[in-house]
């Protein structure tokens, strides 16, 4: 049996190779002229560097400026665009609309999430494929906040496209998606604001950029509903002692409360524009 599923894995890998060969974008025929210095880059800082500046010259506990705009996609029921430094995402919400035919009857609504990347989102050209893990994480982060009982038998689709990946992609996607849901008029208990923290050596860095994420020793991401003070999604990687964990969590919660205010004011602005 083991042989069997090992074989399956290998064929999957072969399939992946075939697909890559079919597309012109393979590493074997073309390559990106990488800056030779970056290959052998030393770790960006050691424990002793307390006053070290981050790549975008923020302090350790300072988030990037957040920008949200609703109504980015007219053909969707609701949409939002978010920009945190170099991280740029668009989220469209469709529905509530008829569930897929194969779906069974359900007296509460369904939520369907999908996250994908553009081919030019990352420094090295990617395949632009769906991101399965982020899709299911986005689903879990939102499902606790949406009042699914308000649209029985139907489905709400939340689709996200990461235009440019500059670090903390998933938290930005989650926050942006909840603004888009509000724009679409889907009933929610509260907005979902999400923030992540990276642990580098002994330092906690909030809202990390890609370079920091690639050399992090641990990370913690929280998605929470600020007004209800409830956590809808939480992921931790790396080794954390309990006091460290508590500190990081508090840091995230405080930051997401602030982020929640920014999201709220963006929605208020959009609503007052419509009234005028």
């Amino acid at each position, binding site marked *: 049996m083991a042989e069997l599923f090992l074989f399956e*894995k290998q064929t999957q890998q072969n399939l992946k190779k075939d697909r890559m060969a079919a597309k012109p974008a393979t590493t074997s025929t073309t390559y990106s002229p990488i800056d030779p210095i970056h290959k052998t880059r030393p770790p960006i800082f050691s424990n002793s560097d307390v006053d070290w500046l981050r790549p975008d010259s923020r302090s350790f506990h300072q988030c990037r400026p957040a920008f949200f705009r609703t109504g980015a996609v007219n053909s969707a029921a609701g949409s939002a665009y978010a920009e945190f430094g170099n991280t740029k995402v668009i989220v469209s919400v469709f529905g509530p609309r008829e569930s897929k035919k194969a779906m069974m009857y359900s007296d509460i609504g369904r939520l369907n999430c999908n996250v994908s990347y553009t081919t030019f989102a990352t420094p090295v050209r990617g395949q632009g494929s769906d991101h399965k893990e982020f899709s299911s994480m986005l689903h879990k982060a939102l499902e*606790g906040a949406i009042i699914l009982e308000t649209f029985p038998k139907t489905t709400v689709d939340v689709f996200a496209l990461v235009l440019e990946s500059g670090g903390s992609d998933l938290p930005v996607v989650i926050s942006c998606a909840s603004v888009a849901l509000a724009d679409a008029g889907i009933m929610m208990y509260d907005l979902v604001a999400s923030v992540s923290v990276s642990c580098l050596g002994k330092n906690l860095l909030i809202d990390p950029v890609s370079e920091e994420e690639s050399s992090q020793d641990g990370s913690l991401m929280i998605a929470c509903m600020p007004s209800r003070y*409830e956590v809808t999604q*939480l992921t*931790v990687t*790396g080794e954390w002692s*309990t006091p460290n964990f508590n500190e990081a969590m508090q840091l995230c919660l405080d930051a997401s409360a602030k982020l929640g205010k920014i999201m709220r004011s963006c929605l208020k602005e959009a609503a007052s524009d419509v009234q005028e």
Partner: protein
Amino acid sequence: MVGLSEGEKEFIKGGISQDLRADGRKRYTYRPIYIETGVIPQANGSARVRLGSTDVIASVKAELGKPSPMQPDKGKVAIFVDCSPTAEPIFEGRGGEELSAELSGALQHCLLGAKSGSGPGIDLSSLVVVEGKICWDLYVDGLVISSDGNLLDALGAAIKAALSNTGIPRVHVAVNAADEQPEVDISDEEFLQFDTSGVPVIVTLTKVGKHYIVDATSEEESQMSSAVSISVNRRGHICGMIKRGGQGLDPSVILDMTSVANFVSRQLIEKLDSEIAAAEADEDES
């Protein structure tokens, strides 16, 4: 899918709030754990873990590969989980894919540590043969044979047991450093054992009503409002955490859960250690 009547649902919830669950356990008690190691002779290491009627197999296969250019001094580990249709009819065809992906993702989160390679679980630098050129790639495969709740904890335990059962052949490197790709000679007799004392255990706390329980059966899982899987190592440090299930949780509840997980994990680690030792002894005898 678990079909329960209203009465049964109330019975489960009521039992949990009175700290006496349907099968007579307390809230923080695990079902009996049975571990068998070396169940797959072709693999470098394997183990079967039974937790009540939940039954999973994990196997470890080691292959020589090339380290990634970003981390030339580290080996690679990949974890995949497959759900067999024997466990649930809906796993037939593509039905189990979603659950498989979720479990694989959660295990990678909980066992593999952070991107820089530091952190818990498997010491990746011990997998390097020649820095930047050759390393061991570990393929860890999990298979769910029978499912009665708490799959993640069972898979975590099975992987821990399989890793401690794993022997990696000693490799002799031919000494000609100028060569692009050094020649290697894989020994058939000498095997290196892994240090698995750092591999964390996964404790899933399932919240039903106001209380949370460990090692939920699928009936209990059907009544959950949310669940948090926490992986804890021997030192009591949190090595990974992922929240599952819908409803939001108050941050103070999460902190409380981590301390409960910490407490439960100590017993679980002890239990696993003795079971793994017993299983290894059994295997040597037979």
